[in-house]
């Protein structure tokens, strides 16, 4: 963002141009979040007046429930896998594909493809592949293992699909960053006959740091909001073991119209996202 940019026009029309966007934004983004906070303090099915004020009871119920805690744990696992597996994989591939040869460009395109596919469609594809009746497990002999019917393996499957779906996005970001590194840095290193590892540690990694931090940002925020992949693959099952915050919210809030309880989950999600975003910003500023 640019700080000082002297205005070119000084009439009042500026306000007029802003009004529609502000109106929309307030009506559909800001107010609903405030409403969610207000509803979360009530028991309400979405019809009639809000009369049944219950204070923080919804939050207590939420945090005491085993299913919700499992959902939070799953979000945590997605974050962990995104940072510990997906990001290193994306970095490795970015390093392998940094030079813009034809073959490399074909690889990049291919690796970016899963990210372009809609989550729901990718999820259905994997639902088929992981299905014990006709997918990959049938290649392992009969009776085929039912991966999606077991809480632990279903979770592993889901995490694998998350990596498959999103690694390409981070790879592309990192490739762009690699290409913008000033080549003269490497010239200097070559003059000093520095080893590859040293060059990577002393030049490449520090130059990539802002982008890597950005990848962390997107991984965590994306992981906290994971929903579209869960529905086609497991729908939160078996026995509620693969829910995420949002699929839990959807199931309890929207399908059962338990607006107060669902909104409490929404408020927690919002606070987690906000808290992370603010913390990340401080971290990023200090490092930059």
């Amino acid at each position, binding site marked *: 963002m640019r700080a000082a940019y002297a205005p070119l026009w000084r009439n009042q029309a500026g306000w007029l141009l802003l009004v529609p966007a502000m109106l929309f934004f307030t009506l559909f983004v800001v107010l609903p979040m405030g*409403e969610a906070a207000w509803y979360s303090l009530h028991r309400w099915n979405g019809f009639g007046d809000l009369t049944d004020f219950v204070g923080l009871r919804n939050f207590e119920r939420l945090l005491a429930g085993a299913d919700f805690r499992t959902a939070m744990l799953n979000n945590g696992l997605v974050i962990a896998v995104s940072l510990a597996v997906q990001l290193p994989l994306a970095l490795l591939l970015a390093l392998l594909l940094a030079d813009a040869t034809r073959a490399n460009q074909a690889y990049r395109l291919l690796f970016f493809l899963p990210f372009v596919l809609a989550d729901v469609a990718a999820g259905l594809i994997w639902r088929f592949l992981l299905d014990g009746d006709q997918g990959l497990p049938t290649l392992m002999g009969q009776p085929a293992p039912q991966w999606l019917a077991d809480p632990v393996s279903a979770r592993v499957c889901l995490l694998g699909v998350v990596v498959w779906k999103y690694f390409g996005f981070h790879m592309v970001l990192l490739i762009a960053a690699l290409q913008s590194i000033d080549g003269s840095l490497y010239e200097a290193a070559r003059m000093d006959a520095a080893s590859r590892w040293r060059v990577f540690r002393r030049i490449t990694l520090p130059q990539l740091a802002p982008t890597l931090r950005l990848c962390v940002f997107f991984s965590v925020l994306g992981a906290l909001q994971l929903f579209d992949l869960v529905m086609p693959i497991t729908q939160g099952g078996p026995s509620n073991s693969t829910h995420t915050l949002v699929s839990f919210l959807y199931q309890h809030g929207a399908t059962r119209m338990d607006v107060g309880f669902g909104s409490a989950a929404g408020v927690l999600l919002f606070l987690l996202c906000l808290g992370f975003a603010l913390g990340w910003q401080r971290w990023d500023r200090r490092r930059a």
Partner: protein
Amino acid sequence: MHSPLPSWARHWVLLTVAALVLLPLLATLFGGLKSLGELRAHPMALPQQWMWSNWWEILQGQRYWAQMGNSLQIALLSVGLTVVLASLAAFSLAFMKLRGANLLLGYIMLGLMFPLAASILPLFLRVRDLGLLDSAWGVVLPQAAFGLATAVLLLKNAFQALPRELLEAAVMDACPWWRCCWRIVLPLARPTLATVAVLSFVGSWNAYLLPLVVLNDDKAYPWPLGIMAYQGEYTTDWQLVLAFVTLTLLPAVLLFLLAQRHIVAGLTAGAVKS
């Protein structure tokens, strides 16, 4: 130059990842062209008998086209609304005298941190109270509102990066703001407008949660909802589900391959420029 691996290992890694990406997609493509019996017996092989009838059945039915039409309608309306609202706001924030402009910009930038899922229930109630359940607008209005933050940010930065002398000359010639906007600023910012359009189109085309909550009538379903409903009805006929998945993904994949440069730029621009 950056490769940390010797050449043979590099090829091995790349080929493995390529296979992991490609095989599920090929299994889907070919699976949709098999009979159910063959799919169950050989899920990963090429079809022995190519069942194009799976495809024709879907393409001749109304359902597929209705869903694609709904998706297209919702996406185009979302793109239009986002681009218009964001351009006006960005133009104002970039060039007009506004008291507290930074505060206003900060307010809209809040949108970058608001997850749609967190307020999905109040959004549902709002759309219901506006009488827009089961209509395209019920999806379009919230979608456009949530797209504003990124769009305004990208456009404002692009506007201010335009050559200032040009705009100042126009102002000297007493060019009113609206003509400057329409004749100079918007045409010059076309690449960023395209980026914003791609971002909001792809976001809308692939969206699932919001339509899921707002649309109950299956006649209004965009394709992600339709495909899930289809899978629910034909649970065991995976050959048909895979054919349906293939046919819904094909346009998107073709479009991606044709316009990959813009799409990759669009999908990563929101990331890099913030």
